[in-house]
């Protein structure tokens, strides 16, 4: 079964469809015409580019190129994580990179090399989309975990210092904030798993069915990817906190202000 292709001229029909929301917006003065034009233009350009270099990557299907691509994704995800969690790059870049790399690559390798076993094992058709899904979710989890953890300690400084002065070491004194942060990071995914297939058909499964896969193959991939996301999100968010914690506190057990991005 092949997916029915449609031409770029057919795609133009969908851009014509945009006239409807723009007319509604104009009539109701919603003020979203300009923003939506910019967004749709960006989306089109970005996806055209992604389509272009993905087709090159798929064609060459080289181990080193795939590795470089995954590393580039990892670096971008790491920069985004630190920016959004308001941590200063110069203190945390390498450690958060290592934490995410461990949490994400271990699960990626396990899933591709042990479970799916494509030939060759580094086949871009499997590695690239699965890496993207895992990393996208790890990114979301890491941002929530790091942000909640450090803002939790910062906002409850008196409580934190009380634990330290009662004899707790940094690991013991930060444990309550670690628990809250990891729970906040991971519970949306847990909730998603519980409603999968009832509320909405998940994106990966929909994509595979449209791509011609049988539903029983699509659900296996979907279950597998959900479990892999859960594992890699949990490992990478816990490691992100563990690894950054070594640098975030001084020898007196107090939170170093320098780890926050200056604007804070």
């Amino acid at each position, binding site marked *: 079964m092949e997916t029915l292709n449609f031409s770029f001229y057919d795609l133009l029909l969908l851009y014509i469809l945009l006239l409807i929301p723009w007319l509604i917006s104009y009539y109701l003065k919603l003020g979203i015409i300009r923003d939506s034009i910019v967004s749709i233009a960006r989306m089109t350009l970005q996806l055209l580019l992604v389509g272009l270099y993905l087709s090159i990557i798929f064609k060459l299907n080289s181990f080193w190129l795939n590795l470089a691509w995954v590393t580039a994704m990892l670096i971008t995800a790491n920069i985004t994580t630190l920016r959004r969690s308001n941590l200063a790059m110069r203190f945390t870049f390498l450690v958060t990179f290592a934490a995410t790399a461990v949490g994400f690559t271990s699960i990626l390798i396990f899933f591709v090399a042990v479970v799916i076993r494509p030939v060759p094992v580094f086949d871009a058709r499997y590695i690239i989309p699965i890496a993207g899904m895992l990393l996208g979710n790890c990114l979301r989890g890491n941002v929530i975990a790091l942000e909640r953890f450090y803002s939790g300690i910062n906002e409850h400084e008196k409580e934190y210092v*009380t634990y330290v002065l009662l004899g*707790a070491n940094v690991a013991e004194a930060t444990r309550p904030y670690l628990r809250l942060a990891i729970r906040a990071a991971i519970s949306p995914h847990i909730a998603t798993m519980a409603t999968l297939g009832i509320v909405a058909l998940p994106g990966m499964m929909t994509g595979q069915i449209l791509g011609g896969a049988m539903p029983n193959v699509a659900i296996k991939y979907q279950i597998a990817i959900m479990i892999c996301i859960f594992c890699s999100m949990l490992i990478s968010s816990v490691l992100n906190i563990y690894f950054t914690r070594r640098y975030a506190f001084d020898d007196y057990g107090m939170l170093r202000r320098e780890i926050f991005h200056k604007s804070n």
Partner: protein
Amino acid sequence: MKPVIALKKVSLQRGEQLILKDADLEVQTGSKLVIKGPSGCGKSSLLAALAGCYPPSSGAIFISGTQISRHNAAALRRDIAFIGQEPVTGAENVREALLLPFNFKANRALRVTEQEIIGVLERLQLQPDILSKECRHISGGEKQRIVIARALLLKKKIFLADEPTTGLDLDSSHAVIETLSDPEFTVVSASHDEHYLSHQQQVYVFKDYCLKAANEVM
């Protein structure tokens, strides 16, 4: 006799802000010393430095003859109880709050019996039934007494107290003052509370980055 707490030419700074300049001070065992001064002058920062939360920008702070440094701050804190103005119980109910520090590695060797808990509560004029209450349902005065009870269970001998009686009801305030007046305890506190001040042996005034005995100021 070696002073329990000693400051030698200590200057303190938080960020860009100067707090204390070249201060010398000696606190003997069992002394009750209180520091008063305008709010925001740095009394709390001084107490935090004595608790080894951050190092002086120059000079040295000694606890029981040992200079506080980044290598021994955690160990020296084992003798020190810090009582803040807003007591932090750090647990859901009172029993858990009292036992909280005994879960930490540093305190694993310490044991506490039910009898000791009841005894300590009694000393602070608290009924044993408070143990099952949730911390968010007890008054500020009771919370403050629980925090002190916890310090007693940890067998602390040095108390650093930041406004320990401010905002407390009369009963709680009396209980706190009476407990801290034990000659076994060395107490350095910061307070505005006249009633509390009247029970202290040495009053120091903190002004213009200096610490001076109140009788010298007058």
